[in-house]
């Protein structure tokens, strides 16, 4: 299990991705799967970076924990910001036409459909979001 703590801002995404991709590469994660996981990770990370600490001036932090082996990877994203469950909102209606489509919710829809498991809990003042994917 490896962990890193990054500033809660969109600019930290590149470092976060490097950390994630390094961890997945070290267990020989296939490229396609790596792209899928990166995409889900980006959605959650950017959402936390933008909104978790929106109510305060000081920059918060985001902790990323990765538990990976060649068969499976679990990624946990933890912040101490406003309680927020990304899984709670209704999925966007994907049968609507382009004109009718709203812009929101696409990211979390992608996460729910791409990862094998997702979960959220608010524990000891922290948002804890977990997502897991089989790698083979």
């Amino acid at each position, binding site marked *: 299990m490896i962990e890193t703590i990054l500033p809660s801002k969109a600019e930290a*995404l590149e470092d976060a991705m490097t950390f994630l991709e390094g961890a997945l590469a070290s267990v020989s994660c296939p490229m396609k799967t790596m792209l*899928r996981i990166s*995409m889900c990770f980006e959605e959650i990370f950017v959402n936390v970076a933008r909104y978790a600490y929106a109510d305060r001036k000081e920059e918060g932090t985001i902790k990323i924990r990765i538990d990976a082996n060649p068969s499976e990877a679990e990624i946990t994203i933890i912040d101490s910001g406003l309680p927020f469950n990304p899984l709670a909102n209704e999925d966007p209606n*994907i049968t*609507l036409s382009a004109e009718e*489509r709203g812009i929101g919710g*696409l*990211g979390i*829809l*992608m996460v729910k459909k791409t990862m094998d498991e997702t979960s959220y809990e608010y524990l000891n003042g922290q948002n804890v979001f977990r997502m897991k994917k089989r790698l083979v």
Partner: protein
Amino acid sequence: MNIMKKQENDTLVVALEGRLDTTTAPELDRELKASTNGVKTLTFDFAKLEYISSAGLRVLLSTQKIMNKQGEMIIKNVNDTILEVFDITGFSSIMNIQ
């Protein structure tokens, strides 16, 4: 991400290379808003696009809405992983993907 534009009369071809994500999507959005005036056929060539996140999808959706009013938008050479994203989000049914 590299953006290569080729304009000929009222057709515009935009080829993307690299990753269309939170950091690169705003640049694409700016480039498109600056170039789509008077364009009747906008074609995206995704042959060299490796990755797309929802930030990229949002730019595509808002561009689709603009092009629906003035002509058409086509996305071609989409790789498997990106096609999967289009399927999951329903974009395959509202966009012309070739």
